[in-house]
């Protein structure tokens, strides 16, 4: 059933998929979304913020499904997906670092660490599946 040839990549993608599902549900629930905002240094979200957090939650679900699709196809068919997701997660990691720096009070660094790990994960998958263009960071 799983067609992706590289086992470490399957493990990494499985973990990223679970992280995506976890964050999707967190952003989709009002109570959990409020808790997330408060603990990461943001203000208590209003109805409009909740709506947009929910939208981000659905995007996370899309990413999780995309990962599952990538695991069920040979690496050669998922190259562009890996490249795109490595870029998206890199931008997300930069934003998370920036937001952490400017936050007044932070109760947990878990989202920041998770975002960085997701980027590293996608970068490793991209390299292991030979989807990397050029040789930058080839040691990954």
């Amino acid at each position, binding site marked *: 059933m*799983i067609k992706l040839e590289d086992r470490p990549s399957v493990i990494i993608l499985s973990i990223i998929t679970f992280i995506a599902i976890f964050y999707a549900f*967190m952003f*989709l629930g009002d109570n*959990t979304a409020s808790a*997330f905002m408060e603990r990461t240094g943001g203000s208590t979200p209003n109805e409009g913020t909740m709506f947009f957090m929910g939208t981000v939650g659905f995007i996370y679900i899309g990413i999780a499904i995309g990962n599952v699709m990538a695991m069920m196809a040979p690496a050669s068919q998922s190259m562009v997906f890996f490249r795109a997701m490595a870029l998206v997660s890199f931008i997300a990691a930069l934003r998370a670092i920036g937001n952490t720096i400017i936050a007044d009070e932070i109760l947990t660094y878990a989202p920041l660490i998770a975002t960085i790990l997701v980027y590293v994960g996608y970068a490793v998958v991209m390299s292991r599946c030979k989807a990397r263009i050029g040789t930058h960071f080839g040691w990954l």
Partner: protein
Amino acid sequence: MFKTDDRLVQICLGICYFIAAMYAMINFFNPDYLIDRYGTLDATDTNRFFLGWYGMMNFGFVAGLIYMGYKGLDRAFFTYAVPLAILFLIWGVSGQMAADESDQNYTAVGFFVIQLIAIIVARARAFGMNFDFTKADNMWGTSDKLCQTILWLGLATQAFFVVGYFINPSQLITDTPGLELNEVSQRFATGVMYFSIAWTIALLYQLRTGYSMSLIVTGLITSIMFFAVFLNFAAAGLTSAGGEMNTLLVSAIIGNFVGSLILFFRLQGNH
């Protein structure tokens, strides 16, 4: 689709997919939509909790249907789907009959009837009316001892929940912090027990005829969703009240998640 040329089977399972997916999305993502439309449902966290639970079970059902869509029809899936459809029709009708006439809403019951007819027609057209219980070469259809053990544990857990319900029907509600015991929540708990009956039947069938990958996928998706929601509740500090939590439910969620993952990754290579 479903590795069959029979259009009727495809249409019937398409209808099942539509109904299950619709209720999965409404229950899980927008329970207030149902709460607004049913006079018996108040906007309480207890009702949202159970509607979310049903939504996750429906997502698992949808995943199993999608798996069958790609890999072909599977008898074992129907041993789960048919009892479930029958039990939920009973559940829906008894629930509405117990409500005041002004609060009655038979929309869901109508969908349950369509679902039951569609699933039975698909089963009858695909496999005829014969019931095949051919014994597999090994117990659970695999020689993998770890998988066999996990499947035994799954069967024991589901059977344990069903027996536990009949000993104390309100235990799930009273043991879970934040849930309120009332007539409606008790009816939801009965529905949860119906899911366990359907799983027990499906697992007994697999014990004899061999495991079914479509049901493993069904269980996997359900257990991943339950575990992710549990972690979310834990992160938001919602799993316990006054230091108390439903340890049995938490153990079942974690055990289900780990067991399903092991089953899927150890058995998927054969499919």
